[in-house]
């Protein structure tokens, strides 16, 4: 038996450590540890609730805007504010664009290299690559000359020793199964996706004033000026044309590049429909209101819960049943660490009790993560695109059913195949496809409102704190690209007295709870085959399939050539003879946690 540790897990945002127990070439148990303390809850105490979103969105530099939205929704919920229709539409467009961009970046830039061997792309025949490309898509950039050019640029990068973003791959690993031509195709699209995401996210720069970290939210709506007769207004007919152009280009990319690539690559890795299954419980708060935020039944993404892989019954969601454990987390509760606490009464009392870095192994019987363990009705839940897709499918959403069935038919697979590593990847692509189709509709509604003289975008009725009750509490729920996100706020005497955020990656990457129930990553890793414990690429495939996002921190260029991007810091036999290199991340965390 070997303990295989991956720390840090790269090609994610933030700090994640995975420890797995490997027996006979398979993972038999797993522990997921967030090695970075977030602490935004403590920063927000005592602040004006109207500015909470500005701070809260700094939880992450990648998800950026999602925390701003959850925060304004929480405060609006607490104060009983309804936002104008234009604000709803602008928020939907921003969140929809974030969803599509994030999914594209995840697939190409954070996940594809688990499946694509860049070094093999150099061996591909550009003419055959062209044939392959044309057989799966109409996308015009598909000539042999084009692929030859890409291949030459990758060759030049390799020759210059600056492999940079390709340097952390496990090139030559036996688990890579794509032919050279499919590798070259994927590498070409990796590069094209860089341009696509850069172009598309201009929607955020325009509607948010800047990107990342949009600046145009307001409690009560948005501060984005809208006026059909005003050339200087942020939203005017000219801008509507720009949004439509950006959305149309994104749609073409998703439908002609992203989706065909996912299907093509999945075709070479069908066995991964059989790994990474996980908890089998799925939750989505739902999102993209069609009218009031208080009518979840009208959301574009339905709200619901699936239990025990049963697609025949969608359970309702009661936000009051969300609670968090800290039994295995570096916090303490005033009510004792065996109890769970609802976020409305949540506590953030950090207390690091882990080993002093560098360390070989965490004591996983004790506390071992900076993430808490959120539970719904005392049950662990998987959140994210797969949860949303399954819930929409089980809720009878015709468009989702049609798309999912088409994908399943292509692989001759039953819906249960979706409970897997590949299922998560496919669900993300399906979702991007559905959202990118929806964007023009929201843009058209905004245009229509403007044409009819409806330019209201902020409700200022309760802007003045004098109009607020002495004390109130509320929550804001959202479907961020990575899954269900909730912010809880308690306001007293015009100030925040308590703030709690439960983010998607806490649901998925959290540790065990007081009952020993595993979190979603921990459950999904069980039974994963491991060809080479020195290079546990297969573990990364499943962990990356969740699109991990843990808040970001240190940024220093290392001039000595030490590689911290290496995935595996230790493959430890129980005797523990292997010595570990110093772990700068853990060191930083220890200093930060004091």
């Amino acid at each position: 038996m070997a303990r295989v540790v991956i720390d840090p897990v790269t090609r994610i945002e933030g700090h994640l450590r995975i420890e797995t127990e490997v027996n006979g070439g398979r993972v038999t148990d797993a522990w997921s540890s967030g090695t970075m303390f977030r602490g935004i809850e403590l920063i927000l105490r005592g602040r004006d609730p109207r500015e909470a979103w500005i701070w809260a969105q700094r939880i992450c530099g990648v998800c950026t805007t999602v925390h701003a939205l959850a925060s304004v929704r929480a405060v609006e919920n607490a104060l009983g504010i309804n936002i104008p229709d234009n604000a709803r539409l602008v928020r939907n467009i921003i969140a929809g664009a974030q969803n599509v961009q994030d999914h594209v970046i995840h697939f190409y830039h954070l996940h594809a290299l688990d499946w694509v061997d860049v070094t093999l792309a150099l061996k591909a025949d550009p003419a055959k690559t062209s044939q392959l490309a044309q057989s799966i898509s109409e996308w015009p950039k598909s000539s042999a000359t084009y692929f030859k050019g890409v291949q030459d640029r990758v060759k030049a990068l390799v020759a210059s020793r600056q492999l940079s973003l390709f340097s952390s791959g496990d090139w030559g690993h036996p688990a890579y199964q794509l032919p050279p031509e499919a590798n070259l195709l994927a590498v070409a699209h990796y590069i094209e996706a860089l341009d696509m995401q850069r172009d598309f996210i201009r929607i955020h720069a325009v509607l948010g004033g800047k990107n990342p970290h949009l600046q145009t939210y307001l409690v009560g709506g948005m501060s984005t000026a809208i006026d059909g007769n005003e050339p200087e207004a942020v939203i005017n007919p000219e801008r509507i044309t720009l949004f439509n152009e950006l959305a149309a280009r994104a749609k073409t990319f998703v439908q002609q590049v992203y989706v065909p690539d996912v299907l093509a690559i999945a075709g070479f890795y069908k066995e991964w429909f059989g790994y990474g299954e996980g908890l089998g419980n799925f939750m989505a708060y739902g999102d993209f209101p069609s009218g009031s935020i208080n009518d979840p039944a009208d959301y574009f993404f339905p709200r619901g819960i699936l239990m025990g892989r049963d697609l025949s019954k969608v359970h309702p969601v009661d936000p009051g049943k969300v609670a968090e454990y800290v039994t295995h987390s570096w916090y303490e509760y005033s009510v004792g660490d065996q109890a769970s606490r609802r976020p409305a009464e949540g506590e953030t009392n950090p207390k690091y009790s882990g080993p002093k870095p560098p360390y070989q192994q965490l004591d996983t019987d004790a506390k071992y993560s900076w993430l808490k363990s959120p539970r719904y009705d005392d049950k662990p839940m998987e959140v994210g695109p797969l949860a949303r897709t399954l819930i929409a499918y089980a809720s009878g959403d015709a468009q989702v059913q049609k798309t999912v069935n088409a994908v399943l038919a292509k692989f001759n697979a039953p819906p249960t195949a979706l409970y897997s590593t590949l299922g998560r990847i496919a669900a993300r692509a399906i979702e991007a496809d559905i959202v990118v189709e929806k964007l023009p509709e929201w843009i058209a509604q905004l245009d229509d409102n403007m044409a009819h003289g409806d330019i209201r975008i902020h409700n200022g009725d309760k802007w003045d704190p004098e109009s607020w009750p002495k004390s109130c509490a509320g929550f804001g729920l959202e479907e961020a690209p990575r899954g269900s996100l909730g912010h809880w706020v308690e306001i007293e005497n015009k100030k925040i007295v308590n703030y709690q955020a439960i983010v998607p990656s806490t649901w998925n990457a959290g540790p065990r709870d007081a009952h020993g129930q595993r979190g979603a990553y921990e459950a999904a890793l069980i039974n994963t085959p491991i060809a080479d414990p020195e290079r546990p690429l297969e573990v990364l495939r499943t962990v990356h399939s969740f699109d991990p996002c843990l808040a970001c921190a240190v940024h220093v260029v290392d001039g000595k050539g030490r590689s911290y991007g290496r995935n595996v810091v230790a493959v430890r036999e129980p005797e523990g003879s292997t010595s570990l290199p110093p772990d700068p991340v853990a060191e930083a965390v220890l200093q930060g946690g004091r």
Partner: protein
Amino acid sequence: MPPRIAVLGLGNLMRTDDAVGMLALEQLRADPRLPRSVSLIEGGTLGLDLLYPLDGITRLLAIDAIDAGAAPGTLLRFEGEDIADLPISKSVHLLGFSDLIGAMRLSASAPHQIVVLGVQPDVIAWGTQLTATVGAALAALVESAIRQVQEWSSEMEQSQTEVVLPLISAITA
């Protein structure tokens, strides 16, 4: 594409000496010697989000805390081949500075010339003030940055003059 110079400040303002690149950028902004054509870009801890602001930049000066194992406060400079020895990123967001440059090379949009200037940090734990050693090196870092962009700027003016002057004489002849 017309030549364009940019200075990119990198680092986390809440991580003690890691902030040095960002703080240097602030000082550059206030420095009257900074050539007007030079763009200043706050990179913070961003990775690929910087593709957009860096689009079209032909000469890039990046300023950051650099862990080269030198004495804290040591001024460091990397250029050309040496940048290749900078590893992918110590930052565990995989998509760090060198990944950004790699991505730009792949899409054939990388600056023609890149210089990385930095200071060896002492402490990179939580903290919003530089340590005394690194704080003392900040002025020298700013001076080096000014010299670098002035040099580039005058080279560019010269090359423009070389193109423009014969044109003017051709027209006036």
